[in-house]
């Protein structure tokens, strides 16, 4: 699987992105790619530029220079909705769910289906929501539970389902396991694997090396606004990865692309 996919063009290709905020240069020409059917981990210490890079891809920041291509087509994002429309869904740590609304309402928030008499088409939305959750094997007490009644892992899963419902090409998750207990972390990591099986290009931002080895196929390591390594997870050890993050060792892959 890895061999065949490396032959094709990656679904998301970021080339030589530079971004400064005033006098502070955060990204110094970063390359990044994510392939369909693979989980790409974006690793780095605090301040490495991971979040800024992702916000450029998600349309929140506009890069100073460089290109973002989706399936070989160069994109110009000015707002987050541009990126969403192009097929890039980003799930931030705050999850952006309404605790007071039920799961169905959250999944369709802002894109509600309408039936007769100007009313919401609750039945059709509930049916689609159930189907989507079943497909991702997300189990919750009821799709009519409010989000406030769900556990942290279930909320994270609902946020993922909300993104996947609109058939994106790329899903970006920002620190998806950061706020969770061990069992719920596993639940979310299993969900990420299912996104890969569904053929999505999945990007996981993390500084948790354990997560990387649990789900990622490729790890791209950033340090001080530069990409310093691209590692195939199957070929390296956790120690190598930590060494790349801290800069204790140089990796040849950093030069290659």
């Amino acid at each position, binding site marked *: 699987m890895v061999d065949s996919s490396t032959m094709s063009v990656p679904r998301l290709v970021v080339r030589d992105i530079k971004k400064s905020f005033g006098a502070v240069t955060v990204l110094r020409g970063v390359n990044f790619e994510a392939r369909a059917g693979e989980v790409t981990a974006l690793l780095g210490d605090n301040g490495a530029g991971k979040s800024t890079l992702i916000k450029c891809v998600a349309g929140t920041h506009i890069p100073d220079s460089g290109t973002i291509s989706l399936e070989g087509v160069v994109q110009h994002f000015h707002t*987050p*909705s541009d990126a969403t429309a192009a097929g890039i869904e980003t799930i931030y740590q*705050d*999850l*952006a*769910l*309404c*605790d*007071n*609304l*039920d799961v169905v*309402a959250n999944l369709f*928030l*802002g*894109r*509600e289906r*309408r039936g007769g*008499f*100007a*009313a*919401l088409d609750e*039945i*059709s939305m*509930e*049916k689609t929501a*159930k189907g989507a959750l*079943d497909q991702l*094997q*997300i*189990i*919750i*007490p*009821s799709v*009519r*539970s*409010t*989000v*406030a*009644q769900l*556990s942290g*892992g*279930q909320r994270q899963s609902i946020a993922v389902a909300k993104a996947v419902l609109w058939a994106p090409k790329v899903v970006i998750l920002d620190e998806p396991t950061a706020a969770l*207990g*061990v*069992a*719920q972390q*596993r*639940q979310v990591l*299993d969900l990420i694997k299912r996104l890969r099986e569904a053929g999505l290009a999945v990007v996981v931002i993390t500084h948790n090396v354990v997560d990387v080895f649990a789900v990622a196929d490729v790890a791209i390591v950033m340090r001080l606004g530069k990409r310093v390594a691209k590692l195939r997870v199957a070929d390296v050890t956790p120690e190598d990865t930590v060494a790349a993050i801290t800069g204790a060792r140089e990796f040849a892959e950093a030069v290659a692309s």
Partner: protein
Amino acid sequence: MIGVSDTDSATPHPPASAAAPARAGLQIDGSKLATTVPIYAAIVLIWLFFESQTGGRFIGARNLSEMAQEYSYKPLLAIGVVFVLLLGDIDLSVGYLTLLCATTVAVLSAFAHQPAVVAIAGGVVVCTLLGLAQGFLISVLQMPAFVVTLGGFLIFEGLAYHILSGATINVPDQTIASIGTSYVPTPLSYALVLLAIAGIVLSGLAERRKRTAAGLVNPPATGFVGRAAAIGVLLLVVVALLDSYRGVPLSLAILLAFALVTWYVAAKTPFGRHVYAVGGNVEAARRAGINTVGVRWIVFGIAGFFAGIAGVLLVGYAQAASTTAAGPDLLLDVISIAVIGGVSLTGGRGNVWSVLLGGLLIASLDSGLNLMSVDSNFVYVIKGVILLLAILLDVLGKRRGAGAART
């Protein structure tokens, strides 16, 4: 169950909560009960207390009818406030906005000799526009609602007092008076009750049929049948009771009609969904592409509209507009009505029907204290305490994790 989830992960707790979908429903009902039972108990106690204090003049068709006729404008005004509270905002101006509407209607009718329709429409339109103007400052210019509506509070008070100049404007128009003083004909009121019951049953059956057709599980039929029966019996008893005096007051019918329409808007339409979303998590709503500015703007217009409707009822009942008719105590009453009915001050929780429960409690207090001729200063103290108790219930309910008081 399929695959990996809470159910088969290592935690000991999730299986119990994830096992049966019906369990969640029961939990919601439990927490709902915990917050509404004290309200019902309070109403019963208040009724028994006033019954004993007024020598048996409190409980009965006559006082119930008079209560409905005199105080229906308060829950009507509260409907607009419910929408504002659902956003997590506040509108302090609605009390004096109601007075300004009453004044406008009185001036148009008594001084400008306009027909009733023009006077009523004039008052309602003025209030709606003023509500929208406040909404513009709050939503587009992002000024805090508290401060904007506090400014509105003073501006509307000043305008109304200036126009009234300390006097009372009598409104002799019979059409306007009939809104506040007439009754729904008996056959019509029974016909409407039967229509309501038929509507509940037929729409409920249609929904169950559609769910089955879509392959979705229906909740147990007992809940639906029980609810329809309870509402039907309650409506019939109330109408029969009111008919044993003079009939269903038109103002009560107007209240019920507006409650039905606004419940539909809040619970069944995309706009209502967006109101709840903005109140629940404005950032999530914005990122989901909801026009949060537009939603807030419209909601303050709705609050203004209901201030207008309340003002019309006020003039209709008193057949006059005067400075004592409405003011800051009306504002407190209306916020109490919403909060007593379970609308949260922090946004996103509660529903429009709550104005009926809260309205009944506040009207009972008003009526009983009035019958007992309690000093008005003491009335303020009692109402202040009631408001604080209601908010305490809201806070306790939230701490219990009752995040589900929706629809």
